[in-house]
C-alpha cells in the first residue's frame, strides 16, 4: 500500500518538525543564559523514507562580555572547566564563581571547581586567575584550573543547570588553545535571528506536511467511498 507508506513518512516528518520546534524554543529561551551553547537539528533519512531528528551542539565561544567582577570567569576557546558535583565530575563553561563557607572555590550552584590537585581551598585574600588558569592569592599559587573536553568530533551530554556530563575519555585542552578570562562572562551563543527564521520555516513546513496528509486522506476517502461503492 504505497499510500499508507506516504502517511508513515508524513507522520515521521511531523514528529521531526515538532522536535525541531522544541529545540528552537529552547534556544530562544536561553538567549541570555551565561555560557549556553545553541543546538542545531537536522533530519536524517531512515529506510529512504522516514526523516528522524538529529541534534548537534554549536560549541563555538559566545561573545565575551567584560563585567569587572573578579569572580566572573569565562573560557575563550574550546573546552570546559571541571566541577565536582554529588553525581561525579561535570563540565561547565564557567560563570560567576564564589567561595563557599568551607572556603572552597565553587561555581554558581555551589559545586567545587576542580584544579589539577583537586578542590581549591582559598583564603580571604583577593583572587587572581591568569589566562592559563592559574589561581593565585597574594602572589601564592593555589592551583591551576582544569580545562578539558571530550575527544574531537564528539560532544559531552547536556545535563542542565549549565552542566555537561563528560564522556569516558577526557582530553586536556592545552593552554595555548584557550584562554581563561577573569572578569568576563560568556554570553549565550544563540543567534536569535537565525533561531527566529528556523521557527518560521518549521511552522511553514509543518503546515505543508499537514496539507500532504489531508490530501492523502482525501484520496483515501475517494477510494473508500466512491470507487469501492457496491454496484
Amino acid at each position, binding site marked *: 500500500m504505497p499510500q499508507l507508506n506516504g502517511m508513515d513518512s508524513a507522520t515521521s516528518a511531523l514528529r521531526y518538525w515538532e522536535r525541531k520546534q522544541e529545540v528552537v524554543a529552547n534556544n530562544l529561551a536561553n538567549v541570555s543564559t551565561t555560557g549556553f551553547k545553541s543546538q542545531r537539528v537536522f533530519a536524517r533519512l531512515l529506510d529512504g523514507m522516514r526523516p*528522524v531528528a538529529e541534534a548537534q551542539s554549536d560549541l563555538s565561544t559566545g561573545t565575551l562580555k567584560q563585567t569587572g567582577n573578579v569572580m566572573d570567569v569565562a573560557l575563550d576557546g574550546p573546552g570546559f572547566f571541571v566541577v565536582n558535583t554529588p553525581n561525579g565530575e561535570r563540565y561547565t563553561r564557567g560563570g560567576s564563581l564564589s567561595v563557599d563557607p568551607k572556603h572552597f572555590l565553587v561555581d554558581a550552584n555551589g559545586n567545587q571547581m576542580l584544579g589539577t590537585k583537586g578542590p581549591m581551598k582559598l583564603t580571604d585574600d583577593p583572587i587572581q586567575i591568569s589566562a592559563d588558569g592559574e589561581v593565585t592569592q597574594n602572589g601564592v599559587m593555589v592551583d591551576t584550573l582544569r580545562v578539558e573536553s571530550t575527544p574531537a568530533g564528539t560532544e559531552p551530554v547536556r545535563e542542565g543547570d549549565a552542566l555537561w556530563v563528560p564522556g569516558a575519555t577526557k582530553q586536556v585542552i592545552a593552554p595555548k588553545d584557550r584562554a581563561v578570562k577573569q572578569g568576563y562572562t560568556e554570553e549565550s551563543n544563540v543567534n536569535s535571528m537565525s533561531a527566529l527564521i528556523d*521557527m518560521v520555516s*518549521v*511552522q511553514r513546513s509543518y503546515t505543508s506536511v499537514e496539507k500532504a496528509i489531508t490530501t492523502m486522506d482525501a484520496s483515501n476517502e475517494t477510494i473508500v467511498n466512491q470507487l469501492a461503492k457496491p454496484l
Partner: protein
Amino acid sequence: MNPALNTAATGMAAQQTRTEVIANNLANVNTTGFKRGRAQFEDLLYQTMQGPQVLGSSETNTSPSIQIGRGTRLTAVQSLQTQGALEQTGRSLDVAINGEGFFPVQLPSGATAYTRDGSFQISDQGVLVTSDGFQIGSGIKIPPDVTNIAISPTGVVSGSNGAGTDSTELGRIELARFANPAGLESMGQNLLSATPASGEATTGYPSDEGMGSLVQGQLEGSNVEIVQEMVDMISAQRAYELNSKAVKAADEMSQTATAMVQ
C-alpha cells in the same frame, strides 16, 4: 500539549526578571554607593528523546537520540562591585572609598552590616553615624565643640576645638573587605550583609594592603551606566518578544495538527 509552549514561557519569565533588575538599576542611578545588579540564568534539565535504537536489520539504520532542553531559570541576581565615580560635595563628613572595602556598620540588633555610602553624620550622642543613624564601626566620638573635622586617606579622624589650637586624633575608621564581594546580600538602605558566598570580612585600615583609601569631601556615585542599561533593556525586550513568537508558533502548530481531523 506542545512542550515548546512551556519552554518559551520560561524564556519570557527570564526576560521579565531581567527587565525588573534593569528597572531597579535605573531607579538607583543616583543612589550613593549603589552597585548595579545583574540577573543570571541557567538552562533547565534535558530530556533525551527517541533514545538510540536500531531500526531494521542493518546497524547503520540507527535512530539517533536527541537531547531537548526545557527552558531556562534564574540562578542569581548579582551586584557588580566595581568602583562608582567620585563626586565632589565639599561636605567634611562625606567620605568615599576609592578602591576595595566597605564601612562596617553596627545595626541596632547588634549585627554588622556593610556599606559604601559614606555620607556620615554626627548623632545626638556625638557618635559618627550613617545617614540612617547607624553607628560606624566600634564608634568614633566627636565632642560637640570640635570643628574642622579632617578625615585622612588612611582613615584617621581628627579635629580641633577653636581656631589656632592643634588638631587632635578622635578615632580611626576601619574598612572591611571580602574575597567575593559579589556574594554580599543587599538589605536595602544602602546596606549589605555578609553571606556564606561572600566569605568572612577581613578588617583593616584604609590604604593598607588590599584596602581602598578614603577621600574626604566626596561621595561615591552609583556604578549604573545608563547607556549600558538601555542597551540591556532593548535586548531583554526583543528576547521577550522572540519568546512570545515561539509561544505563538507552538500554538499554531498544535492548531494545524488538530485541524487534520475533519
